[in-house]
């Protein structure tokens, strides 16, 4: 209420506006390139894979890498490289669906909860707390096991359990901005609540949404692969990295690559997504901060 004038921000950081072209650090460039390769694999695996991923060839089981099979074959004689390439599809689609759904739902709920406050906030907040208290993977294992597996069910369970985390971060950001004069101004002008949320609050939390998206994507990859590894989620026989890890453990001494390759692929995808996500967040946040 008294003068919060801040004439001491005198210089430096204050109102300096730099508009430089984004210089992409090498690590991010490499990560983006790797992600791109994985995406291409997922979209057109047929163009890249030397073989069919599901062609069983019992006579050529568990061969080490050779000219015919660059990463060798698994116990059923399927080409490991082709299975890794085809596996990109299930490793990306599931987590993408999870990340998009989680962010969409948690953003909507966070806006509602943070802006409305009151009982809406109370009910949503306590619901999220309850979800938080349950261990997602274990619940997923139980549910998928009881209801007879299924990729769709696994994805649904992961969506529900990933919401609380994003919700909390976004709600806190909404609450912080709700009290700012520009929101007060919109309210006193008579801007309808829906518009205040969508036009005034939403654009200002976009950096957090971007960051949250990539974080959920990597969690999704790891969690879905874990379920596949345990034999839940994707149907048996499908080319999926988590499943391949599990299936090919047995032949680790005959063809180690059959187990290593999908593992490496998982690490590459998650680490790359993290790098790209962090960088994007910094960029968007910087742009927003350049006030």
């Amino acid at each position: 209420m008294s003068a919060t004038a801040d004439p001491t921000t005198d210089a430096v950081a204050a109102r300096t506006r730099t508009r430089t072209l984004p210089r992409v650090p090498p690590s991010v460039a490499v990560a983006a390139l790797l992600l791109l390769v994985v995406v291409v694999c997922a979209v057109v695996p047929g163009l890249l894979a030397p073989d069919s991923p599901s062609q069983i060839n019992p006579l050529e089981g568990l061969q080490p890498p050779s000219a015919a099979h660059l990463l060798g074959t698994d116990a059923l004689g399927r080409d490991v490289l082709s299975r890794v390439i085809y596996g990109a599809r299930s490793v990306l689609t599931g987590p993408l669906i999870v990340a998009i759904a989680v962010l969409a739902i948690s953003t909507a709920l966070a806006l509602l909860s943070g802006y409305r406050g009151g009982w809406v906030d109370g009910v949503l907040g306590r619901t999220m707390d309850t979800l938080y208290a349950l261990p997602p993977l274990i619940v997923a294992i139980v549910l998928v096991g009881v209801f007879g597996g299924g990729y769709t069910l696994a994805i649904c369970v992961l969506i529900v359990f990933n919401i609380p985390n994003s919700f909390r971060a976004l709600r806190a950001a909404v609450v912080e901005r709700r009290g700012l004069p520009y929101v007060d101004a919109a309210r006193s002008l008579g801007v309808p609540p829906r518009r205040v949320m969508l036009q005034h609050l939403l654009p200002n939390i976009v950096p957090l949404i971007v960051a949250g998206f990539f974080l959920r994507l990597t969690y999704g990859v790891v969690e879905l692969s874990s379920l596949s590894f345990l034999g839940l989620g994707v149907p048996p026989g499908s080319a999926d990295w988590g499943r391949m890890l599990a299936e090919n453990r047995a032949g680790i001494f005959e063809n180690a690559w059959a187990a290593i390759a999908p593992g490496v692929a998982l690490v590459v995808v998650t680490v790359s997504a993290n790098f790209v996500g962090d960088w994007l967040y910094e960029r968007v946040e910087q742009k927003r901060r350049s006030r």
Partner: protein
Amino acid sequence: MSADGLTVRDLCVSARRGQESIAIASDMSFSVAPGEAIAIVGESGSGKSLTARAVMGLLPEGVTASGEADFVGRDLLTLSAADLRRLRGREMALVMQDPFTMLNPLERCGVQIVEALASGRGDRLSRKERRRIAGERLREVGIDDPAVADRYPFELSGGMRQRVGIAAAIAEQPRLLIADEPTTALDVTIQREILELLGSLRSAHSMGLILITHDLRVAFSVCDRAYVMYAGSLVEVAPTPLLARAPRHPYSLGLLLADPPSDRRVEELVGIAGSVPSPGSRPPGCPFAPRCDYRIGACTASLPPLAEVGADQFARCIRADELRVELGTRLAAAQGGEQGGEATLATPLEGEPLVVAEHVRKVFGGRGGSDVVALDDVSVQVAAGESVGLVGESGSGKTTLGRVLVQLEQATAGSVRVGGVELVGTAVRRRDAAAVRDVVQMVFQDPYSTLNPARTVGATLKEAAALAPGGMTQSSGELLEHVGLPASYAARRPAQLSGGERQRVAIARTLARRPRLIVCDEVVSALDVSVQAQILNLLRRLRDELGLAYLFITHDLAVVRQITDRIYVLQRGELVEEGPTATVLDAPSHPYTRRLVASVPEHPQSGAIGSR
């Protein structure tokens, strides 16, 4: 003890941005003798704070200083970090602006005061000894209650915290005290006490004092000499009485004129056009030239030297000599003061006033039953076309009352009728709520968060205009021109505007809604003096043109004098006095109002107080 104080020569502070180096302050030379008080005066962006921090060796990352700073025989700028650390606290100390973040919230005040204290041999002092010294220092800053040493900062008011901060700064009896805007965040009544305290401490300890401030009145009330900074360089150096009487640089004159007097109303406030350039975009030549009324071609050629223009007076202006009489005349004219249109009371119009608030009570529910009464039995009226002031210090409830009027808060009890609609005790129907918004709108204090950073100025204005009764009739270009900005600003984002420009856009946004009353909540308090005058003039003009009514919420009596016809004085949620502005300020009847009026540092033009 050597008698020498601090002598700074050719101090340059610069920041790296990418490859280039940007000058924040250059060629700063100043000196403080023991027992002397100097002021470094400048608006935001002038580089005054970083200059002081350079002396203390407390520059932020990426900012460097060069030059010489001789302090008791040592050059501060060449000392190692460890040596500087030994000097800080013991030989020189810093008091910062924000009393709310200056102290560590997790430590008791007493501990923080004596934190760095050690005995002569460098041993830690005994517990008893430390307590004794803490109590002593607290008494010195006017806190007689020794229990304060055992309190945590959050248990104290802003003024008390600033005192504790000062007590900590003087704990080791430094020879030099740098106070960076020590009173800016404080209420006027407390501001005066803190200034007096600083003044008495420096004479008691024969301590050098550097006061950094944007406020000439504050500088004049405590300091012997003032160094006026603009855009990184000193533009004038003079003893304070001389500067107040006969400024020799157009910028100093501008500052003197822009500061509204609290004892009378002036016809037209004289702002300085434009705003302070940010470091990195300062114009070549004299940095003040683009805003100067006396600019000639040669001004932009090169930076003039800081030349002696009289006994003990220096100015950085190539026309200092020829302008001497001119500047003096303008100041004298302003002082003689055409006693401009004193409070022409708006003739009450027919029908009910726009706002009738009766016996309003607002209680904020604290946790654990500790309710806070923000407003208690407050009755206020605002008629159409009238400008009414709501004066009080922080915690007086003035902003709460404003927010009740624009329906951002709900009053707990009483009655508030805006445009005939009752806002208290009943659920306001949607149509009525809209009708209330057609009558009253609000402009907020902080120019840096009043606009949505994600939207362009045009989008902000269009949204408001579309909600006006009868739909959109003014384009955002027209609105911008109305508040003195070019129409092309519609495409800009808030980040590209200065504080004053943002506040103009915020005013345009309320105008777009075409209200009859605007609640102005401390709209100029976060702005530089030179810009403050521009905004006050704009508000006056809009009132004349549009017949607007204002409810002007402020703690600044000079501002309220310039723009209101009537005022209400609030103290801790209660109304203590009301009446025509001139009457209340000239002859206050309530003790609290008397104290408020007495606390205003005297206007620079009426001469300095308390110095030497």
